[in-house]
């Protein structure tokens, strides 16, 4: 069965940032695992998440739904009027995933970074 692997790290920028690295394909079979993991780190106190997609070779629409659910979990009154989530950003998507992000226009909704340090200090 397809699975996802996660690595969770803590970084201190202007705020505390939780770096969640995902490895595996995010599809209909695995997207819930990502959502559950995100819920777990958010329950554990994470307020700003940098989702590291460097280990994801495929992301279907279910993956984008899971990412949207993450922005919902992190949302508060301050973020509700914004067109971009200030609490969830993406790091280093692979070429294939980056192409889908661009086609669906997800880069309109989420900031995407190639450099980890730049991403952390952007929060």
């Amino acid at each position: 069965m397809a699975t996802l692997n996660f690595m969770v790290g803590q970084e201190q920028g202007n705020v505390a940032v939780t770096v969640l690295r995902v490895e595996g394909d995010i599809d209909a079979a695995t997207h819930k695992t990502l959502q559950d993991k995100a819920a777990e780190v958010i329950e554990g106190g994470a307020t700003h998440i940098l989702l590291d997609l460097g280990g994801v070779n495929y992301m279907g629409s279910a993956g984008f739904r899971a990412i949207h659910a993450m922005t919902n979990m992190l949302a508060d009154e301050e973020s509700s009027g914004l067109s971009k989530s200030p609490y969830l950003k993406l790091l280093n998507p692979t070429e294939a995933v980056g192409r889908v992000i661009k086609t669906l226009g997800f880069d309109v909704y989420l900031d995407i970074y190639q450099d980890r340090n730049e991403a952390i200090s952007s929060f």
Partner: protein
Amino acid sequence: MESPLTSTENRIDTLRKCLFLSGLQESVLSDLALKAETLRVASGETIMTRGEEGSAMYFIISGKARVHDGEVIWAYIEEGEVFGEMAVLDSEVRSASVTTESDSLLLSIEREVFYDALSTDPEAFKAVLHAVLKREREIVSEIKTRSTKLLSYQKEMEIGRRIQADFLPGSIPKVESWEIAAWFEAAREVAGDFYDVFKLKSSSHLAIVIGDVCDKGVGAALFMTLFRSLIRATSLYGCMDSTVDKADAAGKAADVLLNSILTTNRYIATTHAGSSMFASVFFGLLDPDNGELIYVNAGHEAPMIFRQSGEVEMLDITGGVIGLFPAANYTVETARLNEGDLIFTYTDGVNEAKNLDNQQFTEERILKVAAPEGNNTETFLKIMFDAVSEFRGKAEQSDDITMLALKYLPPVSAD
């Protein structure tokens, strides 16, 4: 470790409780109980796997297990029930996998032991045969019930499919100087793709919509009806003033377009926020008198304008997919079609169609196959569909295929 459950009396009790052996005499049960092995199995352990050979049957003394094939669960079994008996009786491979759901205690009896014990009592075979037949009758009855249920689900799906078809235009409006054709091929009985072509009430603009709701099946179909209806309703009965003069019509049409997309997006992103359902949508308003097309491309595959000159223009996205972020912004862009030009819009069932080697049809192949010159729009779409089908070969159509083409007809020569 000595367990009271491993005493011969308790073993006999467990075997007697099992319907499969309930007809056996005490002496046979006692013989089996003495030769049975007790197994302690931790939760989550797979005791037997479908397709593998096996020589033992198991009786659950305590605990619970699921009978399954991979992730498909057929049944849960618990204390007093038996599994693995079929392969023991007919020596075929296991017909299902069994995995414990909790820490369990089992009795295991090997095929040889079972047949040896039965051979001591001629009545025993009859009793086991009766039990097996009783089970078979139960299975036949269960199959009948399930078949009836399945038939009723299939009928419901068929009704759903017919109702959903009503959410696609029954016919395409006739517009002077324009040739319009659509193609829709659902991958499943209900679909997430949609398209629409209709005239605005308050101006001469023609609305062209193509969309693809994420996911597949019933969920996508329900949201398809919502996206399609909201776009149509907000643009038909939205804010456009019927007294707009011609000079301002394009500006007002842009308002209609933007209002429709923004309202649809905001409604779904707030009312259905928890569903995280979204659609990629291309929505254009065409002025049929001059070929001016204003549009919003919300995260959809870029439509292609095939110029009569042979050039191709792509209408890239002007915003992200709709339905997720209430504060999303979209830009209205303008393109112009000249006489002889053809615009082709499609969903990812075309460019992402896969063959058995898992290769995709791709945008490059669309550009290669496209034959706008000398073909009417219907033929243009048929050539494209045939090329996709041929490319896919024996692979299953895994996504809906929707295509829409409009051609600005060149003026009829006076000769």
